[in-house]
């Protein structure tokens, strides 16, 4: 993605988009809500909520097994959602789309199934300083269990991957596991370059795309990587649904993860035969309503166009960086890359010496919802030398008025802590 793509795409109608989101119509503490925490979870458009509700009102039934009418409708709605997700990320086949409960389960699936079948003492998993705990802890678990080494790609001062020593970092590596976009800094990473580098040393490449699938066009074939994990609730979909995409040959060769209904072809008293892809990895009753809801979320994003989503967020990030700097000057430090083309719409901030937890509490009094804390990335926090930041993260429904409200609330927070009788 480059800044120029905004010229070739239809600009989105910000007011119309915002009107699609019922929660954004509410007030908090007497002010209209200003939701700037989409990196944690996105709001849901009425189009998605309607589909979920219609599922329960009209076709709720267990899938794949009932021969009756509503069971057929439920099954086909669920499998159509799978095909929608496949097209959304340009995957070669819908049988490569595995539904999990969140991105975390998707990454754990790879660690348990592929990892435990393929990695042993001394093998290296290479991750990056930008990772979310979901892409750290499963590898730490493998390290503790069987002596796998977890190695880290360091960061540059402005929060990009430092690939200076990549060749030596890759020694002994069996898996490169990186996020395509950082939830803390917004940094976009060179996925294709790292996938190629991984393959060159015979390693696989897993991409945690939780923070990029909602915001940028995704093409797993162009990435030429091996696994991609992401999560529904950050992309206008319901909670309780995540996705693992994997290359068929790999998925075919991997042992099942969890065992139970749906994932078997046959069970005897002596053993079992796993089912075909994708069901082999989907044990138990799937999150049916949530899968169908995710399909509706994909439809919604498609109706806007992911190029337009990206263009909108870039313009808004640019506006935010400019206006915040103008107004707050040295009081405000925004971490991460400075060029809008290198980052998503994530602003991790330090404002004066006000602790993020206090800052976000005061902002909340004005209806401004931001995230304070380590953002599930404690190693990155330690690299930045802070315990926590205050993070505002943008999405398709935000507009300049949201940034203005944030800016105004920052000033008020500064006043509050400065003028309190001490």
């Amino acid at each position, binding site marked *: 993605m480059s800044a120029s793509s905004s010229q070739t795409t239809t600009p989105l109608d910000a007011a119309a988009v915002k009107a699609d989101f019922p929660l954004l119509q509410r007030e908090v503490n007497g002010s209209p809500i200003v939701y700037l925490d989409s990196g944690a979870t996105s709001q849901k458009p009425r189009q998605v909520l309607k589909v979920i509700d219609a599922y329960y009102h009209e076709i709720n039934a267990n899938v*794949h*097994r*009932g*021969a009756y009418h509503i*069971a*057929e409708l439920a*099954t*086909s709605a669920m499998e*159509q959602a799978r*095909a929608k997700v496949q097209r959304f990320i340009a995957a070669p086949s819908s049988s490569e789309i595995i539904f999990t409960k969140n991105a975390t389960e998707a990454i754990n699936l790879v660690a348990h199934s592929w990892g435990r079948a393929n990695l042993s003492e001394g093998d290296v998993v290479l991750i990056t300083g930008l990772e979310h705990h979901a892409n750290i802890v499963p590898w730490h678990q493998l390290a503790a269990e069987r002596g796998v080494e977890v190695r880290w790609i360091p960061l540059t001062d402005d929060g990009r991957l430092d690939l200076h020593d990549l060749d030596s970092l890759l020694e002994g590596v069996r898996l490169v596991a990186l996020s395509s976009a950082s939830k803390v800094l917004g940094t976009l990473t060179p996925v294709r370059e790292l996938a190629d580098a991984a393959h060159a040393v015979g390693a696989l490449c897993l991409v945690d795309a939780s923070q990029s699938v909602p915001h940028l066009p995704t093409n797993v074939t162009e990435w030429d990587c091996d696994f991609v994990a992401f999560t529904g609730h950050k992309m206008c979909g319901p909670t309780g649904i995540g996705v693992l995409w994997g290359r068929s040959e790999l998925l075919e060769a991997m042992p099942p993860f969890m065992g139970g209904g749906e994932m*078997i*072809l*046959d069970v005897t008293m002596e053993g079992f*035969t796993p*089912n075909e892809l994708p*069901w082999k990895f989907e044990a138990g009753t799937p999150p049916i309503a949530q899968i169908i809801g995710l399909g509706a979320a994909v439809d919604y994003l498609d109706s806007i166009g992911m190029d337009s989503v990206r263009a909108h967020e870039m313009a808004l990030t640019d506006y935010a960086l400019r206006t915040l700097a103008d107004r707050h000057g040295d009081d405000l430090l925004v971490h991460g890359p400075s060029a809008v083309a290198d980052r998503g719409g994530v602003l991790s901030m330090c404002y004066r010496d006000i602790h993020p937890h206090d800052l976000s509490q005061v902002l909340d009094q004005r209806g401004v919802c931001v995230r304070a804390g380590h953002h599930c990335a404690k190693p990155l926090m330690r690299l930045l030398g802070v315990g926590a930041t205050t993070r505002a993260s943008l999405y398709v429904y935000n507009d300049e008025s949201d940034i203005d409200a944030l800016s105004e609330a920052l000033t008020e927070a500064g006043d509050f802590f400065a003028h309190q009788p001490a």
Partner: protein
Amino acid sequence: MAGLEDLYREIILDHYRSPRNRGELDTPPANMTEGFNPLCGDEIRVYLELDGDTISEIRIGGQGCSISQSSASMMTTAVLGRTVDEARRVLKAFKAMMSIHEGDLDGAPPTGVTDGEEPISLGDLEALRGVVKFPVRIKCATLAWNTFDHGLDEISA
């Protein structure tokens, strides 16, 4: 009952009640391949024997519903005596008939069933076309065929 005539055509019920080529063959010389419909519990065994390149014997074992049993029975009459290549073309044509093309859902034209080869007539098997309207039953109709497909692969391997 209204609506079911498309599914339970006369010829289907006939094959269900009087299945052709039911039974077993000695292995070896025959090859046996097992298939499961994981969703309803149907199990099928396809016994196959070749004479050179020709399917000289075929038998069906196992249990299943009227659709899976009649489809298996019709399959045996459609492929017995054919060469492996001809049988594979029947197989392909049948599976094409049974597949719900994603293209259809999008309004795009359905994928051709013959890939440039001469079209093959499905004869009686056309009676199973109505199954496509009942997607859950497609797996019943294709169970014998997929198992047969694996059997051919095993023999050629």
